[in-house]
């Protein structure tokens, strides 16, 4: 390995270099952004203004602001003007509170055509900041494969042509880590961002962010998965971003009041120590604990979201995965995360593909991947899930989109919309894991039917209708995407609030804005439209805040204090909200309240909504999901929950005596689609938007985001 990387490094050609004065982080900020343009190899330092900090805070907020100023409403994802911005946020990089090392990535998405953001672990964001940069803003396109190297101790940045290193991430991360570390001990100070060959060949490319796992002696990979940012990365001909910073300590983030942070951190460490084993067992199995829960509550997507449970789901349960996950290791994706959910399978022997026969460490598998690649495709085989997870990651393709598009393809195959001729011989029936694995390789390597599948559900719908004569009504009803983004892995059919949680989300149907199914469908705590609208106001605002600050969502409510159930609003986890207020104030020296925390998010959230508008979306019609998000499309789906649906229709006053299933589906659909529209009305009102879903002038003024171009844009829609 070492000799190899010496040779590889010799093949680099320096294109540009900038020396800079090392910065110092003060109260969570370095007050500088590193700007790079790959068209002309510009490298420069830009100031982070007080206005940026006041309005956009950091992380995703900074990304949105830079991108807004870089693109016009005409810009396409593969234009050189498009950018990739990476920033953690003021809290990002503290070591005392679990989940505080996230990087936020923003770009124009190849699949949605508008702005996308993705939240990812690994060491890059914090080490970038400690090297002197609050954000990295990359514009332009290189001619040949390049890397960007940031040396945070010696103070220089280079752009180098790098022809010889691997593109696939498990190798790229290993090679670049070895290349830039001075010794084995030094490897933890190097962080790599890379994609993979699949990011070149599909529109759902992802970015892998590495962190070096000292116990395993390998770089681990965390994914900025959603929306195809890896595809933009490879289109810019970036092979890797590498940062090196040695010397992370407890005060490197320059906190104003460290004691506040320490106290909040110790409270949470103790909670996790005492309670995780009787709550979600994140330390043992990570998010994999959700599979059996979702199955029990009829929420696990099975066979393209047709059903919510399956008798074989037990084969994908956390007890099964626990046997594969090496136990007892400190699996945090940034220092100080005692939740330690980044589980891995060691010495996994690959059975297929270009790395067949090799033994690898797989960062696998999280709930979304298990549900998406497994249950949603009717495949109940943990080893298939691990192998598919490995290839999705190393090829640089999003496993959530892959699961949802694979499930769509399989249903189309089963319903005769596509056939063997179209798939090039692949028998893509539910449960056919060999065909599914082959399709992943085709997507990764860009051949056969994989070239079509890799374009995502929205484009496949169009192709199936236009080229293969599919019934547009049916494919539109069953293709699980909104705004062009494939749905993440929860069945929202019986929860109106979650239909909104998905379809109203700024970036598309990802549950990171709101996961309300238990509150709505199980607890029945939010019965009225106003209740649901309030939940769809509060939770997206609260959760947006994690992305402004470099935080992970999981330590907020995947662990709860023992007495949380006795508080006024257990769903908000009030004690943890207090922790977040404390750590924000502890880092920045400000004195915000929990209400101001929501206000910080509200500014950025509305700005992102308006960004969608700028790109030609962002109105009501783009918030309407396919019917399968809302209810049963097909006879089989209706019949699988006939008792529930019949009862609902009767309660609503429908006369269902002697009616056929088709007639009942129609009645239910009429009702549910109307309910969804009413939900939108209530949510828009609550958020201070027009009936078409555009923030009002009054709202943007109140929030202080009434920049001239914002006002000009939304004025047309008032």
């Amino acid at each position, binding site marked *: 390995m070492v000799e190899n990387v010496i040779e590889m490094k010799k093949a680099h050609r320096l294109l540009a270099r900038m020396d800079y004065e090392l910065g110092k982080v003060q109260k969570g900020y370095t007050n500088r952004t590193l700007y790079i343009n790959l068209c002309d190899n510009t490298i420069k330092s830009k100031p982070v203004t007080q206005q940026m900090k006041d309005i956009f805070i950091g992380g995703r907020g900074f990304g949105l602001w830079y991108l807004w100023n870089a693109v016009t409403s005409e810009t396409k994802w593969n234009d050189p003007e498009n950018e990739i911005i990476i920033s953690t946020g003021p809290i990002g990089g503290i*070591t005392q509170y679990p989940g505080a090392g996230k990087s936020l990535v923003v770009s124009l998405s190849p699949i949605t055509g508008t702005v996308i953001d993705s939240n990812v672990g690994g060491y890059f964001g914090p080490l970038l900041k400690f090297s002197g940069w609050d954000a990295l803003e990359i514009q332009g396109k290189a001619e040949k494969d390049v890397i960007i190297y940031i040396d945070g101790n010696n103070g220089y940045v280079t752009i180098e042509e790098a022809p010889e290193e691997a593109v696939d991430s498990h190798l790229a991360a290993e090679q670049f880590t070895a290349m830039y570390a001075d010794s084995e001990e030094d490897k933890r100070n190097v962080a790599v961002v890379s994609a993979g060959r699949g990011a070149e060949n599909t529109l759902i490319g992802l970015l892998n962010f590495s962190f070096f796992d000292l116990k395993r002696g390998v770089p681990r990979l965390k994914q900025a998965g959603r929306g195809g940012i890896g595809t933009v990365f490879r289109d810019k001909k970036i092979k890797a971003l590498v940062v090196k910073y040695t010397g992370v300590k407890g005060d490197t983030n320059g906190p104003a009041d460290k004691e506040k942070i320490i106290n909040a951190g110790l409270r949470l460490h103790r909670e996790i120590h005492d309670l995780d084993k009787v709550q979600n067992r994140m330390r043992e199995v990570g998010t994999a604990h959700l599979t059996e829960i979702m199955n029990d509550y009829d929420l696990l997507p099975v066979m393209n979201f047709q059903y919510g449970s399956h008798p074989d789901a037990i084969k994908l349960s956390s007890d099964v995965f626990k046997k594969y996950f090496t136990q007892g290791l400190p699996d945090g994706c940034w220092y100080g995360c005692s939740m330690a959910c980044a589980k891995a399978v060691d010495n996994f022997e690959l059975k297929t593909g270009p790395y067949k026969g090799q033994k690898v460490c797989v960062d696998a598998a999280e709930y979304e991947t298990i549900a998406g690649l497994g249950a949603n495709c009717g495949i109940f085989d943990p080893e298939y899930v691990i192998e598919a997870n490995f290839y999705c990651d190393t090829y640089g393709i999003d496993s959530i989109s892959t699961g949802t598009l694979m499930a769509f393809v399989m249903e189309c195959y089963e319903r005769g919309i596509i056939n063997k001729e179209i798939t090039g011989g692949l028998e893509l029936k539910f449960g056919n894991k060999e065909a599914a694995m082959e399709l992943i390789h085709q997507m990764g390597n860009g051949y056969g039917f994989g070239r079509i599948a890799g374009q995502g559900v929205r484009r496949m719908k169009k192709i199936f209708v236009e080229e293969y004569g599919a019934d547009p009504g049916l494919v539109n009803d069953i293709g699980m995407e909104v705004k062009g983004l494939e749905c993440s892995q929860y069945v929202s059919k019986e929860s109106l609030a979650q239909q909104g949680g998905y379809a109203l989300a700024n970036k598309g149907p990802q549950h990171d804005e709101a996961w309300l199914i238990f509150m709505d469908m199980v607890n029945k705590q939010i019965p009225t439209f106003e209740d649901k609208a309030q939940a769809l106001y509060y939770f997206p605002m609260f959760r947006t805040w994690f992305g402004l600050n470099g935080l992970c969502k999981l330590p907020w409510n995947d662990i709860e204090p023992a007495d949380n159930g006795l508080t006024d609003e257990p769903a908000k986890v009030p004690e943890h909200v207090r922790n977040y207020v404390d750590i924000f104030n502890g880092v920045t020296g400000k004195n915000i309240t929990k209400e101001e925390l929501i206000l910080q998010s509200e500014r950025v959230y509305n700005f992102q909504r308006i960004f969608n508008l700028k790109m030609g979306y962002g109105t009501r019609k783009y918030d309407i999901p396919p019917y399968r998000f809302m209810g049963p499309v097909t006879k089989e789906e209706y019949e699988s929950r006939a008792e529930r649906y019949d009862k609902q229709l009767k309660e609503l006053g429908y006369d269902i005596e002697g009616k056929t299933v088709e007639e009942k589906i129609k009645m239910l659909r009429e009702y549910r689609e109307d309910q969804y529209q009413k939900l939108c009305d209530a949510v828009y009102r609550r958020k201070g938007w027009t009936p078409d879903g555009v923030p009002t002038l009054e709202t943007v003024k109140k929030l202080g985001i009434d920049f001239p171009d914002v006002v000009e844009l939304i004025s047309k829609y008032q």
Partner: protein
Amino acid sequence: MKIVKTKPELCNGCGACMTACSKVLYRVEDPKKSAIRIKEKAEKSGSYEIFVCNHCGECIPVCNTEAMYQAKNGAVRVDDKKCVGCYICVGFCPNNAMFTHPDINEPIKCIACGACTRVCPTGAIYMDEK
């Protein structure tokens, strides 16, 4: 190896142990920088609890920088060069016997030197085999 053992019922709360400890570890006389802590029981004044590390080693595997290690003499120690000050070890200590101070990036932890036992006037702490 010998570690600090306790007989809390003999403790008079004078705090000499804490001063001695902080002097060894950080060259200051500051009980807040001591690796041994005396706390008066809330329910019974004049009665004390003593918190000090028993070198059980449960903190070693929870550390993801490999900063916690067992030294040759058997004591569990912190390698300051590797430590990033996350304090997971402090939160996960089964005996609440590791401490923090905002001026000190690493956890404050007993090194089994015995300095505290030498200044204890009552014999409430003493060195004995683990």
